């Protein structure tokens, strides 16, 4: 059948199972928008193309399906860069469709021309420039396949205006992907399995490091079985939270720069690390020179390029995490490590007294209280919390006890402020039955708050909790600890967030006392439209513990003892 490139685009997306796209029109993508009326796909009009990419990302992370963002050439395409880089570092499968100037104008610096395949080359898993309609179908099929297979990631397809306008024969079946060099399906050899099993069997102080790869590969049952069968404790990365229920007795909690102290001590004392679907990011290792000095290391990951990148390992099992764990499971043997677990319990007991949750209610509102109360109210399996980047993100990771997979969406690798609000829109579109909460700082919120209009326009029930401390809080914390409290450019003059929300027609309220948190959360849950709550929290609270950049993992800055601190106050 003869079709235009524009029609082929939407038909291919439909055949790939796409129901929603997030986009913003413009000159070079207009032929595609013109053809949208014949498609079943729902188009969400965003307010900025960065928002479109974060929405596609949130959509992908909430559902496991490929998220799609659409933009025009030039500025439309370059506005996507931050969202693409975010998806790249967190292995999120998105396909970005951009319009491009006509193929004859390429290279002429035409109006709104940018070499977007050149710009995004290092931040995409792969990208394409399509200049002919008859290349579109195969390219789009390849793009979706590459985005979701192996280690997922963003793929950009740049389509010239004339490729959208011209017509050609469309044959989906014939347009099969041709990727002779692409090999997403690696698996370890029997010998490698045997060596890894031997290391596990001989270990007395093992710890599992559970990362995002478990969620990506859907290995939640397998990781649980591994822990249950062996009794090996499990430490979580930020993006791994939810892979094993927080309430599971072997789940230690989060590791790393703002991980629990006992988790970091456990890693430093261990004789074996079993790293699963994680990549030894500098935020989880601290100084590499002193990282887990007594531990052998097994690394299970789908990406061969991650092996020995940051941490030298003794054994690598390269393959899909779920497949690898399934293969290992029948043969796995571990020594009794109850002494080791007792040791960890002792570490834990020391840390718990410093927990801010144990502070009595003095009327002051701490972000940790807000998040813990939010968790108490919403801890069922339908809640998805989408966090931004900074202090509130770390407090959320510490005090919201994620018992369910895919219940936390956050920008880990790139640390993209402004991610939360649009990503939450994507998550809500992907899972309309889920209760979606945005937890965002006053700084990050203002980076992408234009998407409030998208929420209202799409009539999405998204709840927004702004943790307002009047600062770029995490930067302020670094200034407090490492730059002698020189708060350069971190205090924020903020708008009235309640009035702002109301201007968009969003029910909005402010809370400044601890007693007000739960009623506000309950009101938000009962209201059948979007709700914005501004929580005015302690301005100079810091996230503890903290491993300073470059310090050893066990050298943490700890929360000052609350009893001593209060004595000083009085």
């Amino acid at each position, binding site marked *: 059948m003869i079709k235009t490139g524009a029609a082929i685009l939407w038909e291919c997306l439909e055949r790939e199972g796409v129901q929603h796209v997030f986009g913003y029109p413009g000159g070079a993508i207009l032929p595609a928008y013109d053809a949208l009326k014949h498609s079943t796909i729902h188009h969400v009009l965003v307010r900025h193309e960065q928002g479109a990419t974060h929405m596609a990302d949130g959509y992908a992370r909430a559902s496991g399906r490929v998220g799609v963002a659409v933009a025009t050439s030039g500025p439309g395409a370059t506005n996507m860069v931050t969202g693409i880089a975010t998806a790249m570092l967190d292995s999120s499968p998105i396909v970005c469709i951009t319009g491009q100037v006509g193929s004859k104008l390429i290279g002429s610096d035409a109006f709104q021309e940018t070499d977007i395949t050149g710009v995004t080359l290092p931040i995409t898993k792969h990208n394409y420039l399509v200049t002919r309609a008859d290349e579109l179908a195969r390219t789009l099929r390849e793009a979706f396949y590459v985005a979701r297979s192996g280690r997922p990631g963003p793929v950009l397809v740049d389509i010239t205006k004339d490729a959208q306008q011209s017509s050609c024969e469309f044959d989906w079946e014939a347009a099969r992907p041709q990727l002779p060099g692409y090999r997403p399906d*690696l698996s370890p050899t029997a010998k490698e399995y045997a060596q890894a099993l031997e290391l596990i069997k001989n270990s007395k102080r093992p710890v599992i490091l559970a990362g995002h790869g478990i969620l990506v590969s859907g290995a939640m049952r397998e990781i649980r079985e591994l822990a249950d069968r062996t009794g090996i404790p499990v430490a979580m990365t930020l993006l791994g939270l939810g892979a094993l229920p927080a309430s599971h007795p072997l789940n230690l909690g989060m590791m790393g720069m703002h991980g629990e102290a006992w988790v970091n001590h456990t890693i430093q004392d261990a004789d074996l690390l079993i790293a699963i679907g994680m990549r030894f990011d500098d935020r989880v290792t601290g100084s590499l020179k002193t990282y887990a000095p007594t531990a052998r290391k097994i690394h299970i990951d789908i990406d061969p390029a991650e092996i020995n990148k940051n941490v030298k390992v003794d054994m690598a099992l390269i393959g899909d995490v779920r497949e690898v764990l399934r293969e290992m499971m029948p043969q796995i043997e571990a020594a009794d490590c109850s002494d080791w677990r007792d040791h960890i319990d002792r570490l834990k007991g020391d840390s718990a007294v410093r927990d801010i949750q144990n502070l009595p209610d003095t009327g002051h509102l701490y972000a940790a209280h807000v998040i813990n109360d939010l968790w108490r109210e919403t801890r069922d399996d339908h809640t998805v919390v989408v966090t931004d980047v900074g202090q509130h993100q770390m407090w959320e990771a510490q005090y919201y006890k994620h018992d369910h997979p895919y219940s936390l969406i956050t920008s880990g690798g790139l640390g993209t402020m402004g991610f939360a609000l649009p990503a939450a829109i994507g998550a809500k579109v992907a899972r309309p039955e889920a209760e979606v909460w945005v937890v965002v700082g006053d700084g990050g919120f203002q980076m992408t708050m234009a998407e409030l209009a998208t929420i209202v326009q799409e009539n999405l029930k998204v709840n927004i909790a702004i943790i307002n401390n009047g600062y770029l809080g995490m930067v302020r914390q670094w200034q407090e600890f490492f730059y002698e409290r020189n708060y350069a450019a971190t205090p924020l003059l903020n708008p009235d967030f309640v009035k702002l929300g109301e201007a968009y027609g969003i029910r909005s309220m402010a809370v400044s006392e601890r007693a007000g948190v739960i009623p506000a959360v309950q009101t938000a849950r009962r209201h059948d439209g979007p709700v914005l709550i501004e929580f005015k929290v302690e301005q100079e609270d810091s996230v503890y513990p903290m491993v300073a950049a470059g310090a050893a993992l066990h050298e943490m800055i700890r929360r000052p003892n609350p009893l001593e601190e209060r004595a000083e106050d009085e």
Partner: protein
Amino acid sequence: MMNTFVVYVENKPGVLTRVASLFRRRAFNIDSLTVGRTEKPEVSRMTITVDADQDQARRIEANLYKLVNVLLVENVTSEATIERDLAMIKVAAQHEARSHVLELAGVFRARVVDVSPESLTIEITGAEDKIDGLLEVLRPYGVLEMVRTGIVAMRRGKKSGALAAATNGTATIAADDSVSQSV
């Protein structure tokens, strides 16, 4: 140490940029990179030499494989290979110097490909150190201009199974045990 990679890639626009960009992004320093056609029109072949330790070399290989257009990577550093570099050297050669230069070219089995009243242009093909050797002895006469192609390398003996599969454009490469996918 200097590592030599033979890399088969799809012959498509932009693939050279992808490979070059990878080395830049991961901060690996390319010493030389050559690219050209192969016996298959849809496949190009690169020879890349890069200064890297064993561990870095493994990561370079793994990262090259992550490029969708890369078909096969062979680190031939420790293999029996034939390596060739081609240089054209324009050297000042007037009066009595001319006969000296001609003599030196003869010793190195290099060919004179252009003659002018002031200079001789010498073409030499060989391993890198041979060319370096000629350059060394010509330098006192005055090297006016020089161009080198960079190394091209080929394994000795018969074509490997993996290589045949890659250049046949089939997707069976991953199944071949001779390709190291792991550490």
